């Protein structure tokens, strides 16, 4: 094996914080061989970001490298002066960060930012620098690079901005390229495009890549080797196939099992990893994963396991891994039954949601500018009692607006929304309040959707305060609710920020359940949660549905999650439901090219299922600037002239499978 481009050896990093010393990295070792893509896999808090900051010398002031070295080109980066590091950064090592929207300076033109990175090359004239930059722009797929060079970052979309980030990072032909969760903020179709681009460029430039992600699918899709991190330690590392097909650490194995896209059986209970990350200021003795492991032996409690070689290239930090190797990964999960009936709880028909744009003066100045934008157009759906309707779509597709319109939080312009037969659209707030008892909504961010300065008990009991307790014993009620969502009494006096994402989500569920509603609208119930926790929440929701006969509308961009929980699925694009039907049918035989593209965009946590091509081109147009005809036609691979001119009507294929497409895909 060639000498690695980067070798991290026994690296330990501490942070001095107001709460004490946080041991963020402990004895981390890894190598990045030339021309290879090494993936670092781990959930939040595992120390991935600290690792790359330590490698690039961008650690915060309160961080301290207590041990170890970072060898890059025979030099220890950890010991270099800032001046020497500057030379390495940018020229030899470059990075792309998670959030493309904040990664560029908002007040300096992108071209200027590009050429600034070439400041060390005094020989180059400004014109030559610019030429290099435009060349790079073209390479990352930005059209009209000459013109767009002078634009400012905010004039680019998220996907484009991430491309610019890559362009800037690769300007100097670095030896090592580090990507820190580069696609987390992107939509599925954008993510697919980005991964494709990254692979191409890597092959082209031939640099080594350190790819950091929590997403198993992406790692499987892209990497050659994988390092699995947990709570600041490397728990397992090895070639991609070894890790995915023969995971030796219990954490790795469970992580892979948890991924909903792996569990194809819709009715199965998702596997989870119970427990929480340990507190890194006061490390437990022994193995860091012991409390959540379930396979711990006596040794695990006293000694911290070192990385042991399983094979030549594969090593694992576990005393009890031998037992693992014998068992095949992924057992049979228990099953849940759904008890859906045919009575519709909610009927939505022809609903529009429209937001006004601009003020009075803007209207006077530009009378022809659009005065509003349509977030939801002509949407109809029906949810039967006990059923789950999944609403899928990328950001800006109008799925949250639809949810809020149903809840009466956003006025719906026309159409009708009937709850158990009663028209609830356009009811004044006073009258709508009656229905709020029977309908509840869960919001995207589990922590941020809880009022930050109220104790959890009060939050959960608030619905009773608003709607009246009807003589119920509130203490009993509180305990009941907490029990139902699986939280113990000790959480009563906590504040939202003292909860983990999963716990906060459970509180959200308890709040929604308090008044025993018939319908719950869950907006991205798994967003912001680690894979291991997602399963817990989804299982809980399913369980409650079975016990209480709840009806759900689940809104999510995460198709594997929807496949798991939904009986029916609707796919939204630019405010319209372009296709809806039974979940199995949609997922197995999508009729709309967009649905197909979304499904293709799901990265599979299976190295053997790597995609070859990116599915669709382009980006979602702005809803204020809708294309004529079928609004999907600019991105559609099979668009015809008809599509470009005439909006498609609804076509019922069979079994309630409805699609808005002139040319539904074959086989549907």
């Amino acid at each position: 094996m060639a000498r690695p481009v980067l070798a991290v050896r026994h690296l330990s990093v501490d942070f001095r914080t107001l709460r004490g010393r946080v041991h963020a990295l402990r004895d981390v070792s890894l190598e990045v061989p030339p021309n290879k893509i090494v993936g670092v896999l781990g959930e939040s808090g595992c120390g991935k970001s600290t690792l790359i900051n330590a490698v690039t010398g961008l650690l915060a002031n309160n961080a301290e490298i207590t041990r170890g070295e970072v060898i890059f080109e025979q030099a220890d980066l950890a010991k270099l002066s800032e001046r020497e590091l500057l030379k390495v950064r940018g020229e030899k090592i470059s990075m792309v960060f998670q959030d493309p929207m904040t990664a560029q300076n908002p007040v300096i033109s992108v071209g200027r930012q590009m050429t600034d990175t070439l400041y060390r090359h005094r020989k180059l004239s400004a014109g030559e620098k610019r030429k290099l930059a435009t060349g790079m722009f073209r390479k990352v797929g930005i059209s009209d690079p000459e013109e767009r060079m002078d634009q400012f970052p905010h004039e680019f979309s998220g996907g484009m901005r991430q491309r610019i980030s890559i362009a800037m990072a690769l300007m100097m032909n670095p030896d090592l390229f580090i990507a820190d969760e580069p696609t987390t903020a992107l939509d599925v179709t954008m993510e697919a495009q980005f991964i494709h681009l990254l692979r191409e460029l890597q092959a082209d430039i031939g640099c080594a890549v350190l790819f950091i992600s929590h997403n198993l699918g992406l790692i499987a899709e892209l990497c050659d080797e994988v390092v699995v991190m947990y709570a600041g330690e490397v728990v397992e590392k090895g070639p991609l196939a070894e890790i995915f097909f023969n995971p030796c650490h219990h954490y790795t194995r469970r992580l892979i099992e948890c991924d909903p896209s792996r569990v194809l059986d819709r009715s199965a209970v998702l596997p989870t990893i119970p427990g929480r990350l340990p507190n890194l200021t006061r490390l437990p003795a022994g193995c860091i994963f012991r409390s959540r492991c379930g396979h711990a032996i006596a040794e695990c409690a006293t000694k911290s396991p070192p990385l042991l070689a399983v094979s030549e290239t594969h090593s694992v930090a576990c005393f009890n891994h031998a037992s693992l190797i014998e068992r095949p990964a992924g057992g049979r999960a228990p099953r849940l039954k759904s008890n859906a009936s045919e009575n519709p709880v909610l009927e939505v028909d022809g609903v529009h949601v429209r937001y006004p744009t601009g003020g009075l003066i803007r209207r006077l100045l530009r009378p022809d500018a659009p005065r509003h934008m349509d977030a939801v157009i002509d949407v109809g759906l029906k949810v039967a009692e006990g059923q789950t309707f999944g609403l899928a779509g990328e950001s800006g597709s109008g799925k949250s607006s639809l949810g809020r319109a149903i809840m009466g939080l956003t006025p719906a312009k026309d159409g009708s929304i009937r709850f158990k037969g009663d028209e609830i659209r356009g009811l004044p707030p006073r009258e709508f309040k009656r229905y709020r008892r029977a309908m509840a909504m869960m919001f995207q961010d589990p922590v941020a959707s809880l009022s930050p300065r109220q104790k959890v008990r009060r939050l959960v009991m608030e619905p009773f305060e608003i709607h009246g307790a009807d003589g119920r014993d509130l203490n009993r009620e509180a305990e009941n609710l907490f029990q139902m969502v699986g939280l113990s009494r000790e959480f009563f006096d906590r504040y939202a920020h003292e909860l983990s994402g999963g716990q906060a989500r459970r509180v959200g569920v308890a709040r929604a359940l308090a008044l025993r509603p018939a319908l719950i609208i869950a907006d991205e119930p798994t967003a912001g949660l680690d894979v291991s926790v997602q399963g817990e929440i989804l299982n809980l929701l399913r369980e409650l549905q079975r016990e209480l006969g709840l009806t759900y509308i689940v809104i999510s961009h995460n198709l594997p999650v929807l496949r798991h929980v939904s009986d029916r699925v609707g796919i939204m694009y630019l405010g319209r439901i372009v296709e809806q039907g039974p979940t199995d049918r949609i997922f197995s035989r999508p009729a709309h090219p967009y649905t197909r593209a979304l499904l293709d965009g799901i990265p599979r946590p299976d190295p053997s299922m790597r995609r070859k091509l990116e599915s669709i081109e382009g980006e979602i147009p702005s809803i204020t600037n809708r294309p004529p005809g079928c609004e999907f036609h600019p991105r559609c691979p099979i668009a015809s002239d008809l599509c470009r001119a005439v909006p498609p009507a609804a076509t019922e294929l069979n079994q309630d499978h409805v699609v808005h497409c002139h040319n539904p895909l074959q086989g549907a």
Partner: protein
Amino acid sequence: MLNYALQRIGLAIVIVFLVVFALFVMIHFIPGDPVAIALGPRATPEIEARFVAKMRLDEPLYMQFFAFLGGVLQGDLGNDIFSERPVLTILFEALPYTVILATAAMAWSAALGIFLGCFSAARPNSLIDRITGVVSIGTITVPSFVVSIYMLIVFAVFLKWLPVIGAGEPGNFWDQARHLILPAFAVGLGWVGYVARMVRASMLEVIGENHIRAARSFGLPHRVVVYRYALKVAILPTITLLGIGFGNLLSGAVFAEIIFSRPGIGKLIFDMVMTRNFPVVQGGVLVTAILYVATTLTADLLAAAMDPRIRKSL
């Protein structure tokens, strides 16, 4: 941008209107009589009545207000009640001195404040940062009249480097500049602290942002990152602050104007309220309100113009 500017200008007009109206209401209630103040026991009811009529104080409030507005529309702000000189003339005699003082004070304090703020923010919590912090706060706290008088004692009386009083020989640039140094120093000193604190705070915030990390990850040197990349973003709220500061100084440099005997508009208004010379007060408040609104507006527009995010979208 045009949309935003028009909106702000419309609002500015309403604000000036309200300010002047509020002033009229105040004048209506303020006790005291210009003649009695000027002449003491020599004031006879007869003379007093004449002056009341001169200032239209015997008319209903709304009549006074509309009469004033009518005058404003014709470019007539009335006359000083004693000297009968046009208020507009009196204001334009004082205005240049105030504007020059405010400009000089804000210019030096902004330059130094921005530098200190960046300097501190680049080394947060270092000894230098702390010293700068204490000094900044010190400059904010010490009342400007105390600063002024000490400056006078040291630089004018003991060292005799700089003149004590007045604004300098009319028309003599260097003499005027020499006379400007001490007051500009005294007035600007407090703002050094304000600006430095403000710049430091916004710099720290900006330095924590992702794009700065990105810039550093591309190996840009510290100097470029701090003074070009970070400052360009962090300066935006400071511009607004400077606009407000400049606006405040137009009527708020009273202390310096009294002690340095500078003929500024702040002191003019102060004197004129003291002597109940209301036509001059009305004109002065109108002009300072217009200038205040105009400078803050300019600062906001400037900040908007410097921020491509706002520039294009507005």
